[in-house]
């Protein structure tokens, strides 16, 4: 029985659950953590981004069978670090979201970036965020909010 953690909560998966099931659908359909969105199913849009051991991963391309015993997974619902809270505050302050559907994924990628680099350059932001599509094109505000959050952390 695979065992891992989602937002610090232990998850036990029975052997009867097919190993090809992507983490995304375990989160959404089984655990009802619907903040993580489905966008493309091919790791092309970043909408389903979660943190696996602190690193951004496209959960639509993480099959259950690949999740190692004890893996720590964080979704938008469990994103509570200082960096994350600063980002969410900046997202609100700058009114980043439009339709909002991609923003959980954007925030997961941004949180991973800010955790390793509090003051990212434009190029750093491009590198970290280019895998996250926003069809409303809120990109300029995402960029500004990441910098704003970094500044607020000192």
């Amino acid at each position, binding site marked *: 029985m695979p065992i891992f953690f989602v937002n610090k*909560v232990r998850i036990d998966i*029975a052997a009867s659950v097919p190993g090809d099931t992507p983490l995304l659908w375990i989160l959404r359909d089984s*655990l009802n953590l619907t903040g993580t969105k489905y966008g493309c*199913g091919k790791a092309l849009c970043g909408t389903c981004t979660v943190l696996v051991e602190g690193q951004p991963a496209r959960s639509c391309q993480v099959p259950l069978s690949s999740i190692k015993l004890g893996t720590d997974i964080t979704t938008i619902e469990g994103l509570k670090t200082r960096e994350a809270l600063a980002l969410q505050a900046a*997202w*609100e302050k700058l*009114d*980043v979201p439009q339709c909002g559907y991609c923003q959980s994924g954007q925030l997961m990628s941004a949180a991973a970036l800010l955790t390793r680099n509090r003051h990212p350059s434009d190029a750093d932001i491009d590198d970290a965020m280019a895998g996250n599509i926003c069809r409303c*094109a*809120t990109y300029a505000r995402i960029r500004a909010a990441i910098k704003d959050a970094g500044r607020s952390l000192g």
Partner: protein
Amino acid sequence: MNPIRMSRRPFMSTSPTAPGSAESTAGIQGRRVFLKVMAAAAGGLTLGIFSVDPARAATAKSGKTAASGPEFAPNAFLRIAPDSSVTVIVKHLEMGQGTYTGLPTLVAEELDAAWSQVKVEGAPADAKLYNNLQWGTMQGTGGSSSMANSFEQYRQAGAAARAMLVAAAATRWKVPADAITVKRGVVSQGDRKASFGELAAAAAKEPVPASPKLKDPKDFVYIGKHVPRSDSKAKSTGTAIYTQDVKLPGMLTAVVAHPPRFGAGVKNIDAGGLKGLPGIRFVVEVPNGVAVVANSFWDAKRGRDALKIEWDETTGFKYSSSDILADYKRLATTPGKVARNDGDAAGALAGAAHKLDAAYEFPYLAHAAMEPMNCVIRFDAGRAEVWNGEQYQTVDQAAVAKSLGLEPAQVTLHQLYAGGSFGRRANPHSDYLLEAAAIVKGMAAQGKRGIPVKLVWTREDDMQAGYFRPAYYHRLQAGLDAGGNVVAWQHRIVGQSILDGGPMADMIKNGIDPTSVEGAANLPYAIGNLHVDLHSPQVGVPVQGWRSVGSTHTAFSTETLIDELAVAAGKDPVAFRKALLASQPKHLSVLELVADKAGWGQPLAPSRNGAKRARGIAVHESFDTAVAQVVEVSVNADKSFTVDRVVCAVNCGLAVNPDVVRAQMEGGIGYGLSAALFGEITIKDGGVAQSNFNDYRVLRINEMPAIVVHIVPSAAAPTGVGEPGVPPIAPAVANALAAATGRRLRKLPLHLSA
């Protein structure tokens, strides 16, 4: 059995899992939460563990739970609860454009509510109460009309409620109504104060004023000022609920196998491959394919992919984009239906000193909203319920009702946030909703009624099963006299009608679909001899409106040709336009503002890597809003290029929420740039060649230019902003590329290397 369990127990705990403990919570905050999820097929409905309260779903600003007691609902647009919360019922879909902020702002303004006490709720389907005032008796969202049609209506709703609260306070305090003030949710007179909630019950007994007095704009505290979006918090914490997130007790998920060619039917279904697969519940043939209904999305998709379907392709569309274009080119050699005819364009063209003759090609485009098409439907005896990001309530309600043999009033629509739409969710044929209806109808035929089903299109379905912005072909001929004045303009447009066969088909007059020629037939430039005509061929590719509709193509051909004429006349493109727009104050206002703010005519800073840099400009009015954009591009030696900066000026009348206006311009530019740089749906052998974001490229953050938006100050009634930011960007980029390289690109997407 409990195949997936979630518990707050430490990893590798020795304590045994409590078997069969209670499971009924959606959150994970409980001290000990225990989930069970059905994985193996079996019979029972076992996924009904969680339920999203649909009433909560489209509620943007969460407030305190309303205290018990009657609510004060003076009209269909707001309710005031005993806890003083003001719930504004928004009749338009929130798909990113800000309706859930803008419309409540109007109520809060006239009610003198505190913004913090305002909550937002999506309206149900009711064409009598919630019709779009620009659309007659239809409820729906589109044409950038939400603010424009609601501006007076929602202000009056707030003003009526305020007058009734004031009347109630006047009675209670025995003072004249005009001695009472209302500020930020507090009703007061002298030292006496009352909250809205305290007065609500008494206010409900006051007569509803027929035409309450509206504020003098100089007294506005919210309109024209900064009001934060009502949905930013929910959308920054993953708590906003979209259709994709709805979960109802017993709900199943449907994934559909669509035919490889448009219009093909099902000849034979071999579902043998589904035997033994987990979670499969139903296989249902629907008009456009075969649905697999299962316990979860992944079960349904696995099942869908295991189907072996023999398609009946005799009815299928068989052509490719190249065939369609060849047909359009042939059509363009013959006169079309006349959309506008001033003077004698042909005669003037024949006598012109200098002539330009240009042809333009526009591909099909997918909307590609981040949330692929989906909806939830439940069909039971005598009624149906639909959960959807509803953009076309009246049309969808009628279509679903007809499909299920119900009256429209028997179909309840629950409004949810849409994860983008860009027009897609206002489908003239209610396509995905009817697909969902066909599924539950098929299940009913198998004796299963009342089971909610969520239809989920995969990204591939969303990109390949329709609907699309039509492909177009334009031919534009124009002539200058010896003095460089435009003396002739002949514009021919070829492309499918998006209104034909739909609920708004009566807008087609004399064979002219106005959405095919908007932006061309109303060309603002003063040209005496002007002729615009249209061919609307019928093609088997499903089409519909796409953000900014006709202007997606007409702005490009007209604004690049006018630029070309300016250069041919040896004149500055801004001065040349201004001379032709002398009687168009709205266009002039944005043209002058953008030229000033962009430093038009001043040298651009050189690039550091030797790239050629240049500016380009375009101006276009759509949905009564004029937008001008100046673009700065850098063209590299290998013919690749970047769009570095965009300066945008917009005249949308009174900007109710300037920051939302700026956001819509930024987003419109980004959306338009995706189409200008990458967007192309190619039809191959009757189907779509692209499938996902790998081959249907869209703009990413590293490609987003710096954007500065300037709003023309105006006291005129507000006009739309959701779409008008889109049209100018592609022609402005093409004009900048021409300025940098001398090459005129007339085919979208723009490739200098082609």
